């Protein structure tokens, strides 16, 4: 199961303060679905405008990125251009 670290605000508002959750998913789209069925509304909340770090690599517009059994997934704000 992949380890998912939620953004603080999302954890507080939609996951009862739970910051780290384990999710079974093969790619990012499945991961969002799984999160949404466990915490209704979270899918929408995390669909746009967030970046995600999967095993240390940051993706600005995540969608079908592969998630491994032991992946670590972090949600981050999108990084703006300077």
């Amino acid at each position, binding site marked *: 199961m992949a380890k998912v670290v939620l953004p*603080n*605000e999302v954890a507080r508002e939609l996951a009862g303060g739970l910051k780290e959750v384990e999710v079974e998913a093969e790619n990012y789209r499945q991961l969002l679905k799984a999160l949404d069925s466990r915490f209704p509304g979270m899918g929408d909340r995390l669909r746009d*405008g967030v970046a995600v770090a999967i095993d*240390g690599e940051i993706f*600005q517009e995540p969608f079908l990125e592969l998630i491994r059994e032991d992946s670590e997934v972090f949600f981050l*704000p999108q990084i703006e251009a*300077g």
Partner: protein
Amino acid sequence: MSDSASRFKWVGTRPVRPDGLDKVTGRANFGADFTMPGMLVGRIVRSPHAHARIAGIDASAALAVPGVKAVVTAEDFPEIPDGELMVGEGPMNFRDLSCNVMARDKALYDGHAVAAVAATSRAAAEEAVDRIRVDYEVLPHVVDVLEAMEPDAPLLHETMFTEGVEPKPERPSNVASRCEFTLGDLDSGFAAADVVVEGEYVTEAVHQGYIEPHAAVASVGEDGQCTVWCSSQGQFMVRAYCAKLLGMENSQIRVTPSEIGGGFGGKTTIYVEPVALALSRKAGRPVKIVMDRDEVFRATGPTSSAHVKVRVGATRDGKITAGDAELRFQAGAFSGSHVQLGCMCGFAPYDIDNVRTVGYDVVVNRPKCAAYRAPGAPMAAFGVESALDDLAEKLGMDPLELRLANAAREGTKAAYGPKFREIGYAETVEAALSHEHYRAKLGPNQGRGVASGFWFNIGGQTSAALHINEDGTAVVVDPNPDIGGSRASMAIMAAEVLGIDYDRVRPIVPDTSSVPYSDMTGGSRVTFSVGMAVVEAGQKVIEELRNRAAKIWDVDPDGVVWENGEARPASSNVGEFEPLSLTALAESSAKTGGPISGQATINARGVGPGFGTHVCDVEVDPETGGVTVLRYTAVQDVGRAIHPSYVEGQLQGGAVQGIGWALNEEYVYSEAGTLENPGFLDYRVPVASDLPMIDTVLVEVPNPRHPYGVRGVGEVPIVPPLAAVANAIYHACGTRMNHLPASPPRLLAALDAAKLPEAAD
């Protein structure tokens, strides 16, 4: 200096840039250089008040001026509902953008656009500007970030309720949002510390300071088709933003990028473009708007002013156990400072188990801030890197050794959460430590400071194409405005992948209708992402070239390899054939299947973060408070330098912008909330005589996920200088400048304050 030198023919060399000749002869066309027949001059009416309700606008006298063809106000732009929308670049609040481009109901800062005119001459336009009567009800204002956070502060937006706090606030405030990043357990981190340092660090708003003011020519046809020529960091951004603000579709607007005279993040949004379009739509003629310098200062950019609190704990032997920071950034009149990014960057160079950073995004009566090189990071790094300097002193440790002992490495959990992959931070500290500069002798009143910095770098949506001309030369279609030599990098990478001469490749930067979408030039993404797309397009071309050669030789394409710019038989089993050059294949393309070209559209993945470490020597004049930068060395992990001269140039330019931020540049507001220094005379950017040469050390830890190992390089170099300079001042005179810029009056006051207790003894 790299192992790569031998492997590559063009990567790592320093050829003259393809657009260079035009730029040294005055032929290159920048934003203000474009004209159209029948073009009108557009000028903008700006609020003289920091905060005022607009009770009414009477344009009748202006319209009566001979030559005046149109006046527009917010009423000429559709009202856009609040909320964020996704466009190519990411989420954007178009209501805010619209209200910033043209004030609706309230003027929120000195310089805020409230109306615009178009006339046949500049004189007529200016007279019309003077005759537009705006009925202002002046409101109380606030320009300071801490004052704006007070409960009784004048309120900018009645509908702003702080996001990110529980319970949800019942009263509106100027605090748009609060964010928090945590790692480990802060309390136990500090409990494990033997030494704790803390401080408050203030930086003032600074402007990106590009020398070219914003400029645009817009033309709206009778059929509603629009053309815009302008200077920006992204023609697709201009198209999408203008379309949203004017209620159009992207397909109605074609944007042609001019050469861009600097941006540094300040041209990642729009100001005059939609206004020129609205005026042109109304007047039925092309309209050109060029900002004056004072308009640039009053209404565009700048970066946030910031208030940062930092606390760091460490064990006696120099292991940092906890880092805590609170950042308060003013965003200008609309939410969206880069405080979140600041929160993520401050502690990023270090391996710390327990970190917390909290950020507040605060609106004030100032122009909406825009990105400025590594947005948010320099202010955070100023706090953290100053505190680390204090920590090193308390521990009796060399400040670089302290950084090295705590350096983030591959596998380290970044302070903002995820684990780093391949990074070269420690290598930059080691290079600084072993640099001769670090051991050079210092004289009286002289001091040396060091500091490090981090930036993520970004990838994103990108396109590129490679067309092979009939004579075997090539065109690289590079969709990103060339702000600092990127055409040269693209030509180098195209030449490298095709195996042909650099001089046979010509890059062009086309309009929005001639090439697929690409994200902006910014975030240090272009050499990385467009380079990746160019290489992919090149590989497609090579595949096609192998097919063509296979046809000519009547063999299987697998039997053909592409080497040194020629098609050759893969082995003698394929047959004995003379190699076919690119020129030969191009010349016979009519017979083998028509023109040869390759295009790539990608969402570039696999960015490599960047780190830099700077060493700065200064001399402080105790009589005047003046600071002279004596010597400066910028070390950075650049992945791989495609064109080292332009990479060095990024390091030098970024460092000097940081030096300006540290020593002289600041927005100064009057009691009335008006900007007091909207010109280069009083807003003092560094000039040649202020500076020494800026030495650079390019550390190359290649990014394995880029075909040539590229990381972004442009953002990082502005991050370390604020603290590097402030730390140097401290070591020169014993006074820590917690408030930048350390301009002569401010430093002199600090020196005097430090002397007082002595005098009292």
